[in-house]
């Protein structure tokens, strides 16, 4: 450490005496702020290729691996952390398959987002007092029909986390509710389905939809 301090001090001193074209070269870099070079306008810049991605596409991007994981966490209000449980195990399995680039023309691996959603949602169904009950008010022991309102509300709530409230308050709110209602009733139509299964269907649909929004 003493050697390092001595070197640093010595180099500061050297740097202060080193002038090239009027610009002091900082030996420790960040300790010395850069200084505008007089007359260094855009006329000194070389050519650069313009970017043209097409018409009417603008800011559309694909969520990459890290973005997909973060959006799923947000969709479930960080109650299914990516560092634990089935979610973490699924990430370890599929993360290299997730989209690597944000360009929609080049990205692949969207299907893996649904797998991650599945895993994260399943983490909300575990235990004697699962989060699907304590957070979303769905009673695992009750019928899907009895839980219908709570299931639909859960879907809206999950979607809202990546849509800033537009799922419940935006112009398509009614249609969102209709879609979720149809989904829940379709689940209820099969007598062997449980409320946990219906929650999984709603959770996966809403989480995946929210996590994979392209721009918006």
């Amino acid at each position, binding site marked *: 450490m003493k050697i390092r301090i001595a070197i640093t001090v010595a180099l500061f001193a050297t740097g202060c005496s080193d002038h090239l074209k009027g610009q002091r070269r900082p030996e420790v870099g960040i300790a010395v702020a850069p200084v505008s070079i007089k007359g260094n306008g855009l006329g000194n810049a070389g050519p650069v290729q313009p970017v043209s991605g097409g018409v009417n596409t603008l800011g559309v991007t694909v969520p990459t691996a890290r973005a997909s994981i973060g959006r799923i966490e947000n969709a479930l209000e960080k109650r299914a952390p990516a560092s634990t449980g089935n979610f973490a195990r699924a990430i370890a399995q599929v993360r290299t398959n997730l989209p690597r680039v944000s360009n929609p023309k080049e990205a692949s691996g969207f299907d893996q987002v649904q797998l991650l959603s599945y895993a994260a949602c399943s983490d909300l169904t575990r235990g004697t007092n699962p989060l699907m009950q304590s957070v979303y008010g769905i009673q695992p022991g009750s019928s899907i029909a009895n839980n219908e309102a709570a299931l639909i509300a859960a879907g809206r709530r999950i979607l809202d986390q990546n849509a800033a409230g537009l799922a419940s308050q935006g112009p398509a709110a009614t249609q969102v509710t209709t879609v979720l209602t149809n989904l829940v009733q379709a689940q209820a139509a099969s007598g062997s389905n449980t409320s946990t299964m219906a929650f999984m269907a709603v959770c996966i649909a809403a989480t*995946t939809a929210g996590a994979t929004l392209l721009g918006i």
Partner: protein
Amino acid sequence: MVRGLGAYLLLAMLWLSTESAHAQIDVDATVKALRLRNGITGGLLPVSDPIFANMVTRVQAGDLYGAALLAANSRYFADYLARRLALQMQTPALDETGMTDNDATAFLIAHFTGAAGTVPRLSTIFSENATYLVVDSSGQPVHAADISFEEGLNINWTQMVRINGQEDATGFVLPVKHVGGYLTLSDRPNDNSFAIFGATAGTNLRMIAGFWEIATGLTLMDVASQAATVQQVPRFVPSFDPNFFVGQGQPACMSCHAGGMVSLDHGYSTVANTFDVTGDGFIFVQNSTTGSKKSLGSDRGARGRVQTCNLSRTPTPVCNPESPDVDPNNSWNVAQTWQQSGTLKAMGWVGPTQGQGLQALGYYAAQSWIFYQNLTQRVIGELCPLGTFSETEINRIAGAANPWADPAGTDDIRTIVAMVAASPGCL
């Protein structure tokens, strides 16, 4: 499950079909804020965070740039886009796939967002003599490579500890002349850092070429020139090769080795015999010998023959007898060939054209306009790959970040990020 998938597709389609403003929510402002949030933070910024509400307010006020800057200034930008850009910069492929956090990526994130009380500073990413440690979940500063993938998901990348100086993998403190900012940071074997990429085996040509490619966005052939001399070619390149002076179905060897990124004059001397990778990891070569000199080729056993380079011997040594070999003082002179070929002008090079050592080369390379133009292009590629940006717009954004420009830019990549994201060609 199939019904679930159908439902999510339908939800997504409904989502994209928003048409009119809703009474209870400012749909247009919310949608714009969401797009900024999704691009700049990858969607990591929770919409329940007060930052998002402020973004919506800024958008409502017509301040798209301000809204974008709020996202860029958040810790979520550091965790997502800044980290992504840093991981990409460990190889010239600029691909983060399979990359892992290390000292070099931590250094870059610190320079992108500011950390440990320092301001963001693009201009010294190839020259600052420092090391940055991240703070783990127990509050202890650790090397970024010590962080597990799971722990990395929760790290606050704007919280770092800065340590003066850089050490190689054996703990030897790098002489400042040879510091290359993030280029010379690696504390262990196989840490996916640029240093390991550049200095493993071979001749270290990969290291200097990688530096130029990442700094400028140019390719080897973009800056190759045959208007060079045989004396500018490294000694291990065989001058008797039929493609040496004039390429036959390929570019001439000289066009890159004498007139391009891997010329003796264009920085190869700063890395060739200075760095290596051993079982310990990235090391500084304290006492260079003939056997250790990568400038004499990748075959350690043949380096003596390359140094002697007696072409009358059998078998004929693979070498260039006209080459003076790399300068022992690590000098560089980018005006050689590149002044005449127009490459310096294309780079917008404004600093000194000669110097010694990697730190000076990295420092002055980051004064060139192309460095800021290239970063702008990369950010566009991340945020608006399908957007539309004119040359004028790209230069305007690059100029706003270029601290060497007149008027001075911010030296902060978040300026680029916010301007790109808020541009009419993107949003």
